[in-house]
């Protein structure tokens, strides 16, 4: 490859100045003429039939424009159910409510305070039904969340579930490889453990917000969304309209993390705007985010056979707590489920992964798409085995790692996955084989490592348009959403590399489905790879067309005439465009009945972590002294942004590991505020945090690059639990690793358990 000048350079973010000077555009700040504000009335019970919904008092309040229920919605959307995997979620509760916080009505007013006051006057009466909250109980529970399953049909492998009754299992994924039973019986040792994770949530500092705006030709939706193309297609489907009547515009996002995907408020504001023929805005409060989407709580039973220090078989049973609506949970169950055995070379594998409905806030994608839950279990389990076998945890892993060319559990051969390099760099930065100070008195020290991997969601499509104007300036049209991850800058660098211009001179047009072409969504670390490839192809197409223009004008090959002069020569003035287009979809083979496929993913993401900690044995407080994060991102397109993505992901997972937990009482979140649900502050972040991308290259990626947004999350949780056992000899199997949980485990180990 020729020397790269734009790729590999830490170009300052294109939008940096606009953001720090407060000029960047967000839906949250948007106001339209005549706009009404909507306030959602939410269910106060976890499961029940709506007996009565009295909106009279709310409607009578001065300043209230209208109170809307599902009966009104039906006038504009006859079949008001949406969702990416199942059409299970109603625009407003229809007959039943399925979780505390489910929207049952909306009050519209010019003044948002009036809407809020009126919302409290809506009276709902319910006939309560038995509810189920735990994902394992949901497997056999008599409480059934949905009377009938309604697969969306978007995913062909879910069609067999259509019309299924009396089950909470939205999807079950099974993988079988080799002979697990035989390997277990021939093993030197068999280990079995069960691990759990808790409900947490995305909490972007810009909560969910959407505006519906009726127009002469259809409907415009201004929304803080990670998936504008999906929103357009799904709203068009709900309305029975052609796609081009729905325009979806997305400016910058104040964070997304997987929350702002698919349909959140968009279907609701669309219906409201069409009902009242005025723009309608709904901005959720920080508290309402707790009733919108969470990360899946999970239970993972894992069992491994060891022979001669090698893992010869692994059996995985994973239950995902999907909450009341499936959202993208079924994808997580399958696409992440198949990586449940971890980045290890194991001949005999069985996986059973279940997506369950429960009467809690729906769960969806959250930075890692299920993988952090899996790594938490398999890397805790791996460490426990190494400890029991008196093997060094790094050596034990090294001996069992998957290497390129070897089949993963799906049978797909590993390629461009720097698993061993990541582990080596973690160990090196930890000085793993050096002496380690163990602390004294009531403060004990320990260290731990972990490594995880993830497949990309496949197959998905990205389309890009590169427009070269008559003066040679370049504009990119694509529907990738820059929600803080730096995609605008990275895409500009890829174009700049192809067209040999400075990245700073590329303009990126933000998603507007009237203007920017289709993209599956900004999720799962897919954009740099998929959109990056599409953008590269579009830039190459433009470059080829410029070369063709030069030939057409009779210029000799390689004459290097400035682009502006080409246009001038062709059109006799500053006029015209060259439009380059690029479209990318990786090859993919769906898994067979045993979960086997030669092409499960276009690329692998790898993340490792190492920590040094101190534990206060009198209180259980864990202080993280050092956190090392090493990932494989292929070739970093923008090293500085890569570093901040690694650290941002790690800090987010640190919060999920040590601090964050949604507390429930009969399905009601009891800590739905930032005062009681604590995300990490600067004081919770280790002072020594090191972030590294190993030297690697993704052969099929744009300029050797691939995604980075999630890899820093993978290994943080088990690395810390492993360090806790190293420090004080107790093993925690449920997140979060709170001081009280550590202290209780210490007392348990002393044979003097603390009373409840």
């Amino acid at each position, binding site marked *: 490859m020729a020397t790269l000048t734009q790729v590999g350079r830490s170009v300052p973010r294109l939008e940096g100045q606009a953001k720090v000077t407060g000029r960047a555009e967000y839906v949250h700040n948007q106001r339209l003429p005549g706009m009404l504000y909507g306030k959602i009335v939410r269910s106060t019970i976890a499961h029940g039939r709506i007996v009565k919904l009295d909106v009279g008092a709310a409607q009578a309040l001065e300043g209230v424009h209208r109170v809307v229920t599902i009966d009104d919605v039906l006038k504009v959307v006859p079949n008001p159910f949406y969702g990416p995997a199942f059409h299970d979620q109603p625009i407003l509760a229809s007959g039943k409510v399925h979780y505390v916080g489910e929207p049952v009505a909306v009050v519209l007013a010019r003044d948002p*305070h009036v809407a809020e*006051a009126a919302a409290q006057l809506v009276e709902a009466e319910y006939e309560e039904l038995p509810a189920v909250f735990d994902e394992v109980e949901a497997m056999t529970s008599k409480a059934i969340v949905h009377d009938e399953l309604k697969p969306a049909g978007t995913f062909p492998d879910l069609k067999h579930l259509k019309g299924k009754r009396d089950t909470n299992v939205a999807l079950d994924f099974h993988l079988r490889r080799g002979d697990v039973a035989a390997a277990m019986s021939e093993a030197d040792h068999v280990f079995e453990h069960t691990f759990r994770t808790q409900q947490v949530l995305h909490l972007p500092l810009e909560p969910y917000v959407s505006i519906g705006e009726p127009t002469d030709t259809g409907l415009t939706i201004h929304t803080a969304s990670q998936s504008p193309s999906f929103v357009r297609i799904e709203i068009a489907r709900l309305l029975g309209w052609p796609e081009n009547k729905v325009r979806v515009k997305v400016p910058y996002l104040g964070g997304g993390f997987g929350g702002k995907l698919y349909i959140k408020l968009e279907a609701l504001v669309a219906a409201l705007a069409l009902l009242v023929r005025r723009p309608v805005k709904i901005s959720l409060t920080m508290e309402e985010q707790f009733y919108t989407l969470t990360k899946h709580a999970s239970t993972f039973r894992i069992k491994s056979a060891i022979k001669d220090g090698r893992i010869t078989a692994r059996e995985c049973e994973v239950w995902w707590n999907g909450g009341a609506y499936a959202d993208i949970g079924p994808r997580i169950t399958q696409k992440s489920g198949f990586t449940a055995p971890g980045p290890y070379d194991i001949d005999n594998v069985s996986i059973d992964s279940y997506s369950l409905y429960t009467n809690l806030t729906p769960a969806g994608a959250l930075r890692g798409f299920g993988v952090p839950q899996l790594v938490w279990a398999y890397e805790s389990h791996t460490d426990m085995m190494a400890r029991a076998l008196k093997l060094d945890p790094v050596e034990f892993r090294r001996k069992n790692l998957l290497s390129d060319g070897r089949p993963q559990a799906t049978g797909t051969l590993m390629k461009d996955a720097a698993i061993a390099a990541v582990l080596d760099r973690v160990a090196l930065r930890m000085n793993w084989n050096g002496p380690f100070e163990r602390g004294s008195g009531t403060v004990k020290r320990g260290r731990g490592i972990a490594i995880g991997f993830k497949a990309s969601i496949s197959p998905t499509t990205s389309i890009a348009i590169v427009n070269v104007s008559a003066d040679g300036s370049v504009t990119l049209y694509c529907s990738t959403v820059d929600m803080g991850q730096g995609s605008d800058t990275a895409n500009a660098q890829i174009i700049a590399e192809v067209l040999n211009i400075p990245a700073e001179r590329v303009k990126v047009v933000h998603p507007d489905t009237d203007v920017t072409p289709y993209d599956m969504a900004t999720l799962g670390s897919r954009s740099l790879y998929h959109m990056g490839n599409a953008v590269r192809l579009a830039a190459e197409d433009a470059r080829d067309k410029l070369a063709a223009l030069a030939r057409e004008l009779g210029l000799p090959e390689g004459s290097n005439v400035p682009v502006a002069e080409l246009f001038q020569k062709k059109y006799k003035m500053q006029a015209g465009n060259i439009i380059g287009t690029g479209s990318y979809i990786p090859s993919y083979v769906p898994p067979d009945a045993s979960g086997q496929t030669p092409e499960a993913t276009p690329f692998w993401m790898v993340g490792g972590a190492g920590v040094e900690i101190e534990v206060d044995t*009198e*209180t259980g407080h864990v202080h993280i002294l050092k956190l090392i994060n090493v990932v494989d991102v292929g070739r970093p397109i923008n090293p500085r942004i890569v570093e901040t993505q690694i650290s941002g992901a790690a800090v987010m997972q640190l919060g999920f590991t040590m*601090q964050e937990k949604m*507390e429930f009482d009969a399905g009601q979140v*009891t*800590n739905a*505020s930032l*005062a*009681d649900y*604590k*995300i*990490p*502050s600067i*004081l*919770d972040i280790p002072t020594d945090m090191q972030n590294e991308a190993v030297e690697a290259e993704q052969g099929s990626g744009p300029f050797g690059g691939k995604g980075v947004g999630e890899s820093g999350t993978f290994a943080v949780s088990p690395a810390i639990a492993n360090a806790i056992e190293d420090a004080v000899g107790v093993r925690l199997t449920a997140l979060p690793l*709170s*001081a*009280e949980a550590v*202290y*209780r485990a210490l007392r348990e180990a002393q044979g003097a358990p*603390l*009373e*409840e």
Partner: protein
Amino acid sequence: MTPFELAEPATLKEAIALLDPDDPTVRPIAGGTALMLMMKAGVFRPGRLVSLRNVKGLTAIEPMPDGALRIGAMMPLAALERSATVRAHAPVITRTMRTLSNIRVRNVATIGGSLAHADPHMDMPPVLIALGAQVVAASPAGERTIAVETLFAGYYETVLARNELITSVIIPAQGARRAAYLKCTTRAVHDWPALGVAVAVESDGTTVRDARVVVSAATETPTRLDGAEQALRGETAGDALWRQAGEAAAAEAETISDGQGSAAYKRQLVRVYVARALAAALKPDGAN
């Protein structure tokens, strides 16, 4: 937020007259850092707020003839933090400020407000109880002096009448007494405390003559622990005694379960932090 009346009287007398002994929707507002949160959450919907920010004469820090220090109720916490007089009189207050909420809150929140709000998670109540402080309160019935120790009637409740205002805080001369405040958070480094422990110890270097031990946050109201104090009185200072006092405190404290921890775990925190606070108060290097 629904509309309400905001009064900004210039004198204490006017302020008291604007309050209503029988109407819970009429409340005084000082810095407003706590009250505004309650209003935003819809927990408190005011009919009238009586702002004290223009009331004259509530912002002095003045030494009194008997060696005590009088602090006006409307003094912002950040002003106490920076006051050399306060530091000389009770350095524990200066140290406590550094971890009390954040500078934005300290710039606005007042000493009087932090007592009148009666949130058991606040840091100043246990510290002031340990220092033996009193408040002066004014109402149409006149002025009275109340020990901070007896100010709190329950969770977010004081013994003050609805039309009674704290006008100043009086901190007696501390003499040889040395004090420390430690707080323990369980969900994040920066959080409401799961436990606050304030101690003030009088000793001749070897024997403890007198001690005050106060816990907050883990209990319904800031509470003096008599058993722990008795365990200390007349005994030989040192780690063994601090541990004994911690045991006595743990046996005595009526801790409550909430999102920050179970009652049993908080009892353990009391055990550990009382001992640590005592050690910190008597640390020989003069750090306290």
